[in-house]
């Protein structure tokens, strides 16, 4: 029975989508269908934790019972190892929470039935990708996902930017799909099959010839487009800002994960190129560029959601970097960060959605002081901001610590100064992330409350519950890293490094041994995790500090009274002596010194993010050409 669970958890989402088309006009029926679909999908995924994660079973499932005949996989297979299940759990969790959030959130738009159709289509497509074991099937599901994401980006008919963002997204996204399909075709020409496990077995026999090098470059870049690695990130920023927030959660937390998943499958499983140090350097380089470029772009933004979007890609850069390190702890850090990225990024986008729902704008200049009107949202935002910047009791710290440690160990191991520099870039990026969240917090939730926002109300309960769940998960994954590693991360890491088990589970025992005689071994799966810090102590310390600050504030408040927002004269000198009601530095101006000193760099980047879709395609093709050249030289 258990082998039917993966396919059912995909099909339930699609069936839900079609049922919403049929009965979606009525709100109750729609809510029931969507809740049932996302809950069933999540429950089926959770039910697989025991056999797959803990017992180490790999589920192989042949569509239509077309099992391999004389060593060739003729049908489409679904293969769920710990890595697939890891991403499947992540996806279904984010889909569930964001779906519950959307019920209320989407009432500001018309035709919610179409929204939920596309929403479930997007979810089903992503589930289809991460559970699939067939290269062409991955392409098909990639297209389902891309179309649904494009349509959802264009969903807000009252947002004037929505169609533009969707068009750019479609053009650049179809570029990525083109690369994936061309790579698939070339792989079929070489291996005469489309099954991932069998390709993985056959590619080592035939060795890597120029055609396969070309195919690798194409597949890698194609999945890179889906992960929005650096030259492709502008469209992600546009799409996040224009889409409804609950969709931004999916695009940032789920859609990009398929790209990461694809990169893992292509470079760890199919071509096993991660065994080569040159390929590791390439992926680490791409990750570092992604995280640095996007975080500096984020400092320059004036829109809440656009800023969050750039941070999202910056965190994807962390994941790519740590995956490129190709050591057990590096992969573990990357996967841990993937979970955390989904959680805290989802939380931040949901708070941005709550702000948009309550105030109708996400422009940083028009907001301010919302902590007084929306205290819970402000608290949730602080949790998300602390998590993404890596403040200790929250989850961002654990994964970032693992990534720093992995990069440092790599540097010690290879003796190259470059990997030590990677740690520096990662830390600097983390600091800049914190800086830009200080900016957001200051200009959205603290400071002066504009007159227009006087009667803003807190968001409804049905929207706050998913946010609280996400915040709680942020804290839990932060204080219980041991448990997470034992049951979720370590099995996934083991599965990532164990491609022989993957092949054998699909193609029958002994297939890998027969074909993989002379492979480059990937990293050995030794687990040496961070040494001397205990998250529980940090939690206690954090609580003590929090209590102390609260007590101090309460005492201080009783002394000073309620007049916290009166004008004080000491700021007047900075603002030409005028006596304003409150001297708040506008959200865009907080880091004017930084911006001034880096104006040349920021000008170059601003010109590169020109908003012209031709330019984005050009950067994409240039990036493909660079990757092709790199692969032909070093592979």
């Amino acid at each position, binding site marked *: 029975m258990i082998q039917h669970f993966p396919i059912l958890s995909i099909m339930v989402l699609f069936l839900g989508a079609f049922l919403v088309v049929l009965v979606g006009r009525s709100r109750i029926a729609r809510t029931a269908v969507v809740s049932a679909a996302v809950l069933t999908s999540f429950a089926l995924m959770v039910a697989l934790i025991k056999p797959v994660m803990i017992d180490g079973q790999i589920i192989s499932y042949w569509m239509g019972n077309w099992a391999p005949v004389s060593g060739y996989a003729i049908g489409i297979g679904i293969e769920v190892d710990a890595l697939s299940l890891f991403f499947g759990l992540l996806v279904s969790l984010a889909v569930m929470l964001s779906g519950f959030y959307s019920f209320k959130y989407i009432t500001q738009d018309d035709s919610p039935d179409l929204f939920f159709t596309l929403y479930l289509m997007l979810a089903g497509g992503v589930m289809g990708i991460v559970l699939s074991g067939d290269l*062409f099937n991955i392409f*098909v599901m990639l*297209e389902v996902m891309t*179309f649904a994401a*494009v*349509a959802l980006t*264009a969903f807000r008919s009252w947002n*004037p*930017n929505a*169609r*533009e*963002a*969707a*068009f*750019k997204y*479609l*053009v650049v996204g*179809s*570029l990525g*799909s*083109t690369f994936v*399909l*061309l790579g698939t*075709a070339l792989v*079929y*020409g070489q291996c005469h099959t*489309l099954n991932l496990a069998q390709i993985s077995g056959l590619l080592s026999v035939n060795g890597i010839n120029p055609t396969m090098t070309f195919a690798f470059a194409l597949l890698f870049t194609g999945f890179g487009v889906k992960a929005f690695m650096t030259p492709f990130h502008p469209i992600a*920023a*546009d799409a996040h*800002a*224009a889409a409804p927030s609950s969709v931004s959660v999916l695009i940032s937390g789920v859609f990009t994960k398929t790209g990461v998943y694809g990169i893992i499958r292509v470079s760890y499983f199919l071509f096993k190129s991660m065994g080569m140090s040159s390929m590791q350097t390439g992926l680490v380089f791409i990750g570092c560029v992604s995280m640095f470029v996007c975080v500096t772009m984020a400092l*320059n933004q004036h829109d809440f959601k656009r800023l969050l979007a750039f941070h999202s890609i910056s965190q994807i850069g962390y994941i790519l970097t740590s995956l490129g390190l190709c050591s057990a702890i590096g992969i573990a850090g990357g996967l841990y960060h993937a979970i955390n990225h989904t959680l805290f990024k989802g939380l931040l986008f949901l708070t941005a959605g709550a702000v948009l729902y309550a105030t109708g704008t996400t422009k940083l200049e028009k907001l301010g002081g919302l902590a007084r009107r929306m205290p819970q949202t402000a608290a949730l935002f602080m949790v998300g901001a602390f998590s993404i910047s890596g403040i200790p009791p929250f989850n961002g710290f654990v994964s970032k610590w693992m990534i720093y440690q992995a990069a440092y160990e790599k540097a010690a191991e290879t003796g190259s100064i470059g990997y030590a520099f990677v740690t520096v870039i990662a830390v600097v990026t983390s600091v800049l992330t914190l800086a830009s969240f200080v900016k957001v917090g200051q200009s959205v939730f603290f400071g002066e409350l504009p007159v227009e926002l006087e009667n803003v109300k807190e968001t409804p309960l049905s929207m706050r519950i998913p946010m609280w769940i996400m915040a709680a998960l942020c804290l839990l994954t932060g204080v219980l890293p041991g448990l997470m590693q034992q049951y979720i991360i370590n099995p996934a890491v083991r599965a990532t490094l164990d491609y022989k088990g993957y092949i054998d589970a699909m193609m029958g025992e002994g297939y890998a041994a027969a074909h993989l005689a002379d492979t480059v071994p990937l990293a050995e799966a030794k687990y040496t995790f961070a040494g001397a810090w205990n998250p529980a102590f940090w939690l206690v310390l954090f609580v003590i500090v929090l209590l102390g600050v609260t007590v101090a504030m309460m005492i201080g408040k009783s002394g000073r009274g309620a007049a916290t927002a009166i004008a004080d004269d000491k700021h007047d000198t900075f603002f030409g002596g005028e006596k304003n009601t409150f001297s708040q530095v506008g959200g865009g101006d907080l880091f004017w010194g930084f911006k001034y000193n880096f104006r040349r760099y920021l000008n170059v980047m*601003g010109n590169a*993010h*020109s*908003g*012209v*879709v*031709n330019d984005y*395609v*050009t950067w994409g*093709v240039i990036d493909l050409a660079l990757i092709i050249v790199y692969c032909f030289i070093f592979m």
Partner: protein
Amino acid sequence: MMLVNYIGAVLLLATGFYVMMTKENIIKIVIGMGIIDYGLNLIIVSIGFNEGGTAPIFTMSELKPGMYFVDPVPQALTLTSIVIGACVTAMALTLCIKLYEEYGTLNSSHIRRLRG
């Protein structure tokens, strides 16, 4: 397996990329995406082609000894890929219609509210 088809497909792909990179009319960008689709379909079908092979259909009256088929798998893949290409075009053109209504132009260098 025909080399001419392969090279033609690569050239079609390059043409499509060129159109997408340089043409400012967004309808032309969509046409470029179409050209890329044709290139992809051409290369997939050519990979399965076999000199002298016939269509992979068992129709009893036409089958003679010594006949052989071409590879049916890429043809099935191409059917899927054609439909996907048509869907891309449909979606992109509807977006073009809306963009023209909103911006009053089809020039991609004027459709750039989102930048920086």
